């Protein structure tokens, strides 16, 4: 299986997933293309660019600077500010806490160092709080290990570990953008899952990693941080289900042509040399399930949208419309049903009747307007 995935990717190391990418796996679980590419660790961003559909995800320097500055501020002087916040949300009685910066040991040792520290902490029954800054977690995804570099801190208190997630979107008068909070919760769930896996491997009770994560954001319009507890049990369940599905990616891969590969044929300087049309054909061999929501989550979104346009798919119009159309796959088929130019197939009677009647009603109501043209 691993060989097969390696062949799909070509002779480059698999792309490491970060927590954001892992969280996004759950965004469109029905998409085989995404499942296969992610399982093989294909660089989707580069692939999309090479086939002429670069992803629309730029990040502004201003946003990056502000995010980094806020994180640095929260972690300043051994997380002094964070401790103040945790006293409030977790009702900590403790006067002071220990602080371990895991990155002290250098990048290559960070994961094993994280393991050792967490193991020691889990054995220790003491009640002192401890911060672990820059830990490195590992999570197995479809057969190979991804390392997660959280901007988070695992915090231990009374034998329980809490994941702390620092985000720079504001909480204004106690309310934050629900979309951003949901994204933060999905991301934090990835860390909780990785931490639980680690505890399990070390022979400890995985449930000692709490499902309550601490979200730290700037309050109102100032840089002053504020913390809140987030329950990520739902996100954990979705994530686990999705990872289990990815482990079964064999079935998907087995049905693909033997010679299929997404190899970009990079030259010595790393520049892809594979003919773009050939790569596009290879991508086309794995079915995608495009939805407009992909445009906020997947590097290949513009490629898949273009493909959906080429075959006139009703997916283009969004899930609301697709639901209304009762699963009729293409625009032309739906219009033919509406206009009576096509006999409804089995199970399409209902939707055909509805569309035909909708067409008649539109014609009746727009009769007088036709003279003015379509608008």
């Amino acid at each position, binding site marked *: 299986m691993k060989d097969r995935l390696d062949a799909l990717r070509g002779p480059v190391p698999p792309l490491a997933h970060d927590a954001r990418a892992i969280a996004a796996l759950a965004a469109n679980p029905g998409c085989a293309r995404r499942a296969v590419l992610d399982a093989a660790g294909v660089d989707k961003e580069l692939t999309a660019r090479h086939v002429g559909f670069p992803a629309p995800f730029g990040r502004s320097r201003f946003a990056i600077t502000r995010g980094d500055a806020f994180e640095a501020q929260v972690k300043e002087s051994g997380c002094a500010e964070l401790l103040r916040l945790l006293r409030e949300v977790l009702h900590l009685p403790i006067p002071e806490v220990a602080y371990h910066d895991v990155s002290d040991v250098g990048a290559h040792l960070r994961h094993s160092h994280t393991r050792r520290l967490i193991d020691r902490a889990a054995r220790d029954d003491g009640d002192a709080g401890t911060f672990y800054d820059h830990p490195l977690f590992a999570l197995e995804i479809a057969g190979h290990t991804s390392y997660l570099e959280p901007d988070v801190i695992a915090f231990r208190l009374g034998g329980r570990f809490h994941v702390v997630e620092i985000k720079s979107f504001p909480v204004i008068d106690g309310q934050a953008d629900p979309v951003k909070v949901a994204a933060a919760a999905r991301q934090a769930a990835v860390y909780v899952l990785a931490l639980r896996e680690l505890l399990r491997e070390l022979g400890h009770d995985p449930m000692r990693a709490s499902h309550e994560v601490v979200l730290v954001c700037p309050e109102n319009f100032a840089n002053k941080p504020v913390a809140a507890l987030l329950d990520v049990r739902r996100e954990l369940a979705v994530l686990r289900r999705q990872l289990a599905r990815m482990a079964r990616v064999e079935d998907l891969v087995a049905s693909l042509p033997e010679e299929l590969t997404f190899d970009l044929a990079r030259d010595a300087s790393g520049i892809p040399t594979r003919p773009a049309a050939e790569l596009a054909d290879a991508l086309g061999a794995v079915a995608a399930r495009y939805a407009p929501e992909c445009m906020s989550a997947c590097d290949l979104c513009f490629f898949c949208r273009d493909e959906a346009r080429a075959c006139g798919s009703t997916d283009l119009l969004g899930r609301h419309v697709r639901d209304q159309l009762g699963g009729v796959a293409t625009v032309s088929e739906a219009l033919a049903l509406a206009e009576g130019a096509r006999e409804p197939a089995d199970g399409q009677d209902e939707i055909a009747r509805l569309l035909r009647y*909708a067409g008649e009603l539109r014609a009746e109501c727009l009769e007088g307007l036709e003279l003015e043209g379509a608008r």
Partner: protein
Amino acid sequence: MSALAALARLRAVREGRAQRLTTVRHCHVSDRPMVFVPFQLAGEAAAPLAAMVGTDPGSPRLLVVPQPRDRDLRFAFAAELAEVVLPYVEGFGKVTETVERRNADPYERCLDAPQLVLPNRQGVAFTGLLGRSTRFRRPDGPFPVHPSVPVLGRWLTFFAERASYPGSSLTLAATDALAMHWASGQSDLEDANLAALMGWIDPPPGRTGLQAAEEAEDPLLWPPAGPATDPGFDNEVLAPAIEAYAEAPTAAAVERIRQAVRSQAEPAWRLTWRALELLRALPAGGSVAQRWDYDRGAFTDFLTRTAEGAPPQARRDGAVSAAARLARMERARASFDAQRAYDDPLVMAEYRLTGEAFAGNVVATEPEHTEGEGRSRKLRPLVTVATADPVRLAPGTTLGTPDRRGQEAEVVEVEGGTVTIKITKGMGRGKTPAPGAVPEVGERVCYTSVTDDFQAAAALPEPEMTPWTHGGPPPEYVPTDEDAGEEWS
């Protein structure tokens, strides 16, 4: 989304052009709107970067914060914005009319009201944030600002709140207003891009809607309509310009930022005005004027309260005011839905498709049918309508009709392709109906269970009587130095 709207989107794909969702316009378009295109600095909670604002499409005012992280410059921006917005808003207070009311004292209402138009919904949200970050400031005390700043904050908050009030047109988001009237050949997520949506509705000559929408996604051709800026623009154009200003805050450095920002704001400015033009060209629905009357009332009310020195809007509603607001918005939603259906056969068609309304020709009438005996004998004409609509109405359901709005009817029987109804209200006291009160055989009629009935306001206690289950009476707002000095970084 209804099947009717889904079909319109399918047609838009095939025709390469947006399709009408309505036969009339359901929002008010002012003769003198103010278009407001704000931009914010990425990554910050509410740091204004620039705004293009004004009432004349030909001469916008461009306000720029050359260093968006500088608090003083932000307040200078707010004061400058107030200079444009407040005279516009307060100007409408000068001419009023006296409105007579039954069983109540007459009151004064402004003859017209301001209308703030933004390119999109995110612009409205940002307007609310700007309002929130300025309305608690004070002209005196330890952190003084220009006296116009807190007043501006209240008005921006007012406009942002009205935007979420169904049927109100005091604040319009161009994308939402357009999407209410036209179905594009793309998803509603993509409709949030004003340039793309306009591409479908009003493509340049020789282009299909799809081609125009594709071009609209190129940030170099069509920069985003704010408040977020294009990351590429931030990194390559804006950041170096701001750095240059930080090194040497000269007039030339400011001008460089102004030019940069102008290139981002101008397309959205033009598109928003064009959107208003397209909307204005549609004939107004029958209830638009009535809803605008309420808007004028709400505006007059707020203008008066502000003049009388009412405190700024609370950060969060107390329990009672939140419940009252929710109830008001629910009633407004029901009323707006019903009015649109009554004003517009194409909106009514959605209810006909789901069986909540039907239309057809009258095949039989019994105009002098009565119920009751003696003094309580009442005229209850029966009308039988033949319809092809899939009626799903139970006997006894109350009905209204767009053709005779004062009347109310009731379903008597639904059988095959005919519906028999009984007119129960609006028949007068006579023994025979007034001419024209009962539809004639052969007349085309439409009845629906969707009605815009008057609903009494929810019975809620006074705020000072809030029960302990809801946190008890909310503390009275007392302005503090802390509010006035709140960090804005």
